[in-house]
């Protein structure tokens, strides 16, 4: 096996799984294999994909962020209100990203400075953030988002066959997040902290700083995803994004992110999100009842996790042989 294939084994498995699934759906209903349908899969994958990229940072650092769906909602309603009140849309986007980074950093501070378990800390902020979203709006949706803002983040480009601009934002986020994680010092530290926090600390890594930054990235991703949803729907609900954290975790898990931290790639997560979207759209094309979608999605997640287990076991056996 070439080195490239070896290092991207997990991603290739997910791609193969997507292809097999696509074939089955196409045989059952040829509509599945059309350009238009492909577009709707990618659009379906965008929001969850961006959220999952952020989640991947939190998980690789050895934690988890349950509050992303609520950060998502806060950004939707505040940016929504800002644009409605006539704020410059570019400035609004910038403030939205800052807001997401701040919410994420708060999670990071709770986890590092107060030494809370990530699960509990973000379970707490999940409720607080959701509450804030309700308080800001009084429970009412923010309506009539100006087109000046909407067209910045959500617009069909007819010259490209109706591809929506936010798909490119998804790819851009994925590329930047992927490079930062794989290539920068910060990325290296996140893997080290998630792989063995004590060893990272005793190697002179600033563990707290790496974690706070990782959760800030998670928050920024939630903010970007939120603003895309706001732009494409044209309304901002304080209830938006509820349950999205679970889909994001699922995409990361399918993509090979190790739930205990220290391992995973953005590419894997992106394909994980695409797989979930392809599955969802496929079941819709086949007119399968929504209730069944939950069951199938769950089974896929369990298979992915089990596959990860087998793969790790196999790898360690191979390595032991090499030592001898």
């Amino acid at each position, binding site marked *: 096996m070439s080195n490239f294939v070896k290092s991207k084994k997990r991603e290739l498995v997910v791609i193969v799984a997507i292809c097999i699934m696509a074939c089955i759906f196409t045989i059952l209903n040829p509509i599945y294999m059309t350009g238009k349908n492909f577009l709707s899969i990618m659009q379906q994958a965008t929001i969850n994909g961006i959220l999952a990229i952020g989640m991947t940072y939190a998980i690789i650092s050895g934690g988890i962020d349950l509050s992303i769906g609520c950060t998502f909602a806060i950004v939707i309603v505040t940016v929504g209100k800002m644009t409605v009140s006539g704020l410059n849309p570019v400035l609004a986007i910038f403030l939205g990203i800052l807001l997401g980074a701040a919410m994420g950093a708060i999670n990071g501070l709770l986890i590092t400075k107060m030494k809370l378990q990530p699960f509990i800390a973000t379970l707490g902020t999940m409720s607080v953030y959701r509450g804030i979203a309700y308080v800001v709006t009084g429970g009412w949706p923010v309506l009539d988002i100006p087109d000046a803002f909407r067209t910045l983040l959500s617009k069909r480009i007819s010259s490209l066959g109706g591809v929506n601009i936010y798909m490119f934002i998804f790819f851009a986020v994925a590329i930047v997040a992927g*490079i930062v994680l794989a*290539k*920068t*010092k910060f990325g*290296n530290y996140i*893997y*080290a902290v998630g*792989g*063995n926090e*004590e*060893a*990272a*600390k*005793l*190697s*002179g*890594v*600033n563990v*707290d*700083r790496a974690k706070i930054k990782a959760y800030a990235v998670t928050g920024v991703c939630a903010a970007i995803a939120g603003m895309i949803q706001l732009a494409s729907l044209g309304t901002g609900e304080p209830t938006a994004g509820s349950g999205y954290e679970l889909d994001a975790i699922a995409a990361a898990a399918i993509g090979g992110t*190790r739930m205990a931290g*220290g*391992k995973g790639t953005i590419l894997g997560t992106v394909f994980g999100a695409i797989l979930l979207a392809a599955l969802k759209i496929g079941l819709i094309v086949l007119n399968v009842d929504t209730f069944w979608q939950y069951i199938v999605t769950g089974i896929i997640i369990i298979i992915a996790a089990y596959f990860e287990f087998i793969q790790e076991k196999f790898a*360690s056996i191979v*390595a*032991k*042989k*090499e*030592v*001898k």
Partner: protein
Amino acid sequence: MGNAVEFKKINKRFPGAHVLKDVTFSVKDGEVHALLGENGAGKSTLLNILHGVYAEYEGEVLLHGNKVAFKNPNEAIVKGKISKVHQETNVVKDLTVGQNITLGYEPKKGVFVDYKELNNKVDNILTQLRCKFKSSDLAGNLTAGEMQMMAIAKALFHESKIISLDEPTTALTLKETDALFEVIRQLKKDGITILYVSHRLEEIFQICDRASILRDGQYITTLNIADTNRAELIRNMVGRDVAAVAGRTKSGIKQKEIVLKVEGLSSGRKFQDVSFELHRGEIVGFFGLVGAGRTEVMRTLFGADKKTAGRVFLKGKETHIKNTHQGLKDGIGLIPEERKTQGFINLQSNINNVALSSLERYMSGIFVDDTKRRENCEKYIQELEIHPAKADFLTSNMSGGNQQKVILAKWMSTDVDVLIFDEPTKGVDVGAKVEIYRIMEEIAESGKGVILVSSELPEVMGMSDRIMIMSEGRIAGELNREEYYEDHILNLAIGGNDNE
């Protein structure tokens, strides 16, 4: 006297590796028999066969003359009356001592566990072993030494006739080690056969009757301890003469400049008023019993723990180290005591582990350059003779000695001025020990200050220019080379008066 254990032409193959080759020897009834060999010599594999962990092998194992073939470790304990006390003892910390010992074989009254009977039985065994803890105590509250005793008590609960001890003293204090040896002598009197695996040769001479030596999966010889010496054992283990294991080859590399000065360093109740100086090119040893506070001092110096009082000067300038990142930047490095849990990142390759503390050296713009990192790693693989010599290899899959070399390479890649070695040769085989000593010396020669924390006297005495002795969180004495006497050092460590 008959044979308690006989190995006949034992062969064990893993895919692609032949790890035991025609191993044949026997252990006499009621003796304390040492099993010696370097890491990877096949000791663990042989023990695993004996105790039913590996059911597949060629050859025969006889216990008291009867051929046995255990399907799993449990069968070996219950039917074979043969128990193994693990290197890292398996303890369920939330259960009581009695529950741990009887786990799976609790005495019962109907469907319920009979705790009265259970505690009576276990307390009987514990009294026999002269343990101070009781069956009803929580296992989590025991010290490392007491956990070891608990494991032995478990072996006795199952009426074992043969007990294997695998590196039993690694985590023990000197006092606990003595207590353990007392128990071993007691067990021997009661006719129990002991198989003893340890890297500490001093212990072999204290406690064992005979020693069988394995090298590269082959049986080499069995020696009567009374008729042999350290050099002969080592020669048989490594197949070559290793001159006085821990010793300096160069002298006079100590420089004038004081690189580290510590004044009155304290951390709550862990240690108080620690002061010392370290020159460039000097190796200063820190000796003390387990719990004397040596590791805590080093962690505080490096920034891993917080100090409550005292001042630290590096290269003449006072520093206020708040975390390890700053410690590294200011020029202090620490090779930690617990290699597997503190030393390296589990899922990562040697490249990443070697580069982790010096990433800024391999940057191209804002990105870490993989080629530069790989080159650095490969350089050290060659220099330190790391095996397997693969940069992409996962550090977690290597042997202890080689993992330690990867950690050394990580710190040699940085430009720290002070490097602290905390128990650097713990669980490392003789060959790798010598190499680690040479590397330590080279680091000192390059002008860094070296601190060696160790619980092994020969190591501290052999390597250090000066020895600081710690006792109960305080510096109990400082000795120069000409003042090195084992009994004097030990006396200080135990808390005796300097003038006694």
